[in-house]
Structure formats: structure tokens, C-alpha cells
């Protein structure tokens, strides 16, 4: 067969190169996994840094994900359905935080919402301070992770056949009903992928938070910041924190793999029903 003859010569070299990358990606995780005993895990979880950081990370990432979904879904729909030049320009602007280093985002946020910043100066006149608060943690997470959701959601919406929506409208559905009952269910697997990517990115947010929100246990110290703080005094503690964060990321990935097929069987079952 033609594709066999194409693949054959590249095989040994290709397999070797691919194997090197697979090892590079997996061995450090293995090193992390074997470097803490169950007793050390328990000791790490008992550290005064652990529970406040984990709770803060969970709370803020879920809140920022909520904001991202509520604001990012209409934006993604507009980007997917609009053919104008302005939509292309906005799309590039929305993607910018993906290519900008998080530390730069942190500096930019300070220059905007800081006490002497573009908007912060005005806000502080009203007694609203953003740096060093949980609001700053949320803002940093939203800015760095929203593009991942908007991009994935816009791609998912682009795969929605507009004719299906037109049919729904001719059958009497209002634009809102057509969007929520037809477009969103069709795009849902893509939306879930976008949510997971955005959530994982927010959970790992480090650079912008460190610069913009500071580092106070129980208030602005998220898990990645707790790892850096632990590394300054107790390496084993940092290992335990890292393991917990890696496990959380792993769970998201497994969920990501299972969600589309689970959805397909669920939706498929529903459609085939008489």
C-alpha cells in the first residue's frame, strides 16, 4: 500500500525521536511521583501553607472560570459568526495574552490597576484597591486563561452548521432559544475542552499573580506561589505541593479525554430516541 511505503523509511529514526520527547515529558513527572513517601505527603498536607493555598486556588480558579464562561461565550459566538474585519482584529487582541509572558501581564496589570496605574489611580480615590487582594488574583487568572476558552469556544461554534439554526428559527425558536438549545449543545464538547484548558492555565498561574497580587498566605498565596515559598525553606514540602498540583492537572486531562466520548454517547442516545 502506498502509505506503508511512505512510512517505512522514516520509521526507526522517527520512533527514536518521538521516544526521546515522550521520555522528556514523562520522566520528570515520574521523578516527582517517587520523591515523596505517604508519610511525607501527610506531613506536607499538615503544613500551615497547604490548606489555605489549596482552598484559595480552587475558589479563585472556579470563580474566574465562571467569569470567563459568562463573558467569553458571547464573545466566541460573535467571533465565530461575524465575517467583518473588526472581528478578526478583536480575535488577535484576545489571543495576545497567550503569547505574552505572564510576568509581562503582571506588570501590565500593575500599570493599569495599581495605585498609580491608568485606572487604579481613579479607583483608589473611591477607596477601591486591587493589588494585594483576592480580586487581583482573579484578574490575573482571567487575563491569562480567558484566551484559551475563547479560542476553543470560537472554533467549536464555527463547526455549528448555521443552516440548523435557520431551521430552528423557522420552526419558531427565538434567537436565544436557538442559541441555547441548538448551538450550545452542538458546540458543548469544544466548550468543555476550552473550559478545562482555561481552568488548568488559571490553576498554574504564577508570574502575573506574584507581581500583581503579592504573596500572603490565606489571602493571595495560591498553590504555585506556595510552592515557591516552600522551596525557600523546605524542599520536601515543595515536592508535596507540586505533586498535588500535578495530580489536579492530571485529573483535568483525564476528564478532558473522557468528556467528548461521554457526551457523544449521551447526545447520540438522546437523538436516536423516538
Amino acid at each position, binding site marked *: 500500500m502506498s502509505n506503508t511505503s511512505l512510512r517505512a523509511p522514516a520509521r526507526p529514526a522517527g520512533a527514536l525521536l518521538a521516544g526521546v520527547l515522550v521520555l522528556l515529558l514523562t520522566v520528570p513527572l515520574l*521523578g*516527582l511521583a517517587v520523591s515523596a513517601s505517604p508519610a511525607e505527603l501527610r506531613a506536607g498536607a499538615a503544613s500551615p501553607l497547604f490548606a489555605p493555598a489549596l482552598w484559595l486556588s480552587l475558589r479563585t480558579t472556579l470563580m474566574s472560570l465562571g467569569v470567563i464562561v459568562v463573558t467569553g461565550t458571547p464573545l466566541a459566538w460573535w467571533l465565530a459568526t461575524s465575517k467583518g474585519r473588526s472581528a478578526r482584529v478583536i480575535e488577535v487582541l484576545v489571543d495576545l495574552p497567550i503569547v505574552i509572558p505572564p510576568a509581562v501581564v503582571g506588570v501590565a496589570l500593575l500599570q493599569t490597576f*495599581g*495605585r498609580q496605574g491608568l485606572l487604579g489611580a481613579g479607583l483608589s480615590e473611591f477607596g477601591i484597591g486591587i493589588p*494585594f487582594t483576592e480580586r487581583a488574583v482573579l484578574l490575573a487568572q482571567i487575563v491569562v486563561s480567558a484566551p484559551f476558552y475563547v479560542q476553543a469556544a470560537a472554533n467549536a461554534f464555527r463547526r455549528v452548521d448555521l443552516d440548523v439554526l435557520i431551521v430552528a428559527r423557522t420552526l419558531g425558536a427565538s434567537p436565544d432559544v436557538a442559541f441555547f438549545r441548538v448551538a450550545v449543545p452542538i458546540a458543548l464538547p469544544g466548550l468543555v475542552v476550552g473550559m478545562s484548558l482555561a481552568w488548568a492555565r488559571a490553576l498554574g498561574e504564577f508570574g502575573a499573580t506574584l507581581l500583581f497580587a503579592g*504573596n*500572603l*498566605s490565606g489571602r493571595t498565596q495560591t498553590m504555585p506561589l506556595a510552592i515557591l515559598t516552600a522551596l*525557600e525553606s523546605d524542599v*520536601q514540602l515543595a515536592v508535596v505541593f507540586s505533586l498535588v498540583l500535578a495530580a489536579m492537572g492530571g485529573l483535568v486531562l483525564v476528564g478532558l479525554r473522557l468528556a467528548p466520548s461521554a457526551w457523544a454517547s449521551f447526545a447520540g442516545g438522546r437523538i436516536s430516541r423516538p
Partner: protein
Amino acid sequence: MVTTRAVSRPLSALVSAAFFMGGCAGTDSEDRGTQLSILAASSLTEAFTAMEVGFEMANPDVDVVITFAGSQVLRLQIEQGAPADLFASANEAQAHALADAGLAEPPRILAHNRLALIVPTDNPAEIFSFGDLPQASRLVVGTEHVPLGIYTRSMLDRADAKLGAGFADRVRTQVVSRENNARLVRAKVELGEADAAIVYQTDAMASDRVRLIEIPGDVNIRTPYVTATLTDAAGGAANRAVADFVAFTRSEEGRAILVRYGFDVEGA
């Protein structure tokens, strides 16, 4: 105190992270001349950069390469095999731990630093003396996982005894962030985000965007800096260049550099 437990097994992920944060020590040596590799505490950045210039002028055949990072991170790098000849630590404990492990010679005192209060140049909280500190509504200090934070706590406890009970508590309730090193603490004041911060005297003097307020001597803490020559076991060359550099840091010229950047060399 700082936890000084040894790293017992290969922590590949974290150590590579530590290397990444601290930057690797230069290892590529040129054929002509000797390369001297120094790992120095971040707070020595300006002073040791000036030392490097002065020493290389007097010793043109030696190429000095200095890597700056937190003393704890540097100790971790040495324990994990980062090749270097000299360790300059802001914390005696880290150098003693390396000496106990046979990786370094016994450490010798280089100079002392002390704590200082800094405020932004526009001084929004109107802090003019150390006693005004409770007026700061946004205070930034070092986390108690690094020496700066530990020294700050001791200093505030002493202030409590001198300036009246409750002083330390009033100050502590105003803390909005505990940063991982003195430079991050100082940056929050330079940006105008913090009303006040407690850093080392040397960090305060190295910035023209903060105003320095002395902390009274009977309250302040003197913190020793040490140098320790690394042994063969740590990959140290232990050659004459190392000894020459150590001597240079104690020479009249070396001491003048240290004083210029805010260090105290009396009784060092």
C-alpha cells in the same frame, strides 16, 4: 529558624526548576586564563559585580563568573552538583550546612547587613521615623520562610519591648504581602503599591526610587554574610584565584566597595 534539612534524593523536577530560577553557573572555560565561578546571594548583586570589575582589573588572567540567587536556592544547587569555586551566603546556616556535608571549607564572616525601613518617594502614609510604622496601611515584608522575614519578626519583637506592647501587632495587621526575597519586597515600594516595607540596608541604598528610614540600633538586627570556599567534592577548583578573590574581598579596596553599597565591615 530556617529549616536546614538535607535533600535526600534526586528531585529532578525541582532541582531543574531551581537551576532555571537561579541560572546555571557558567562552566565553559576558555583555554587561556583561569575561570573563577562564584555563587552569591542576591543581596550581594551590586557589591560583588563591583568586586568582579576591581578583581579582574588587578588579575587580567582570571575570568570571574558570578551567579546571583537566594542563598537557600544556591545551597540546593551546590548540593545537586552545580560546579562552583566560592559560595557567598547571606545566611550562615546555609554555608555551615555545606561545610558539614564536606562540600565547603568552614565559612568566614565577610560583612554585616542590617534592616531598614523604606517608603515611596512621595511617602503617602507620611512615615518619617520608625515609630510612624503603624501608620502604613499597606506594609510589605519578607516571608518567614526566608531569612529576611525571620529577621523582620525578631526586629518587630524587639520593637515591641522598646516602643510599647502592641506595636508589633499593630504593624503586623497592616502586612498585605510576604514576598520571597528583598528585591520583590522593594519593588512593591518602588511601584508605589506599598506604603512601607522592611528590607536590608543594602537593598534600600541600591535604589534611588525609595526613601530610607533608619531603624534604631537597639531594635535593629545585624545579619552576617559569609564566604565559604567550595571543596573538590563540590567541583571547586580551590586554586590560587579563589584565595586571591577571598583576600580581595577583605582588602582595603574590597571593604570600600562593601561600605559603598551599605554593608558594615566593622568587626567582620
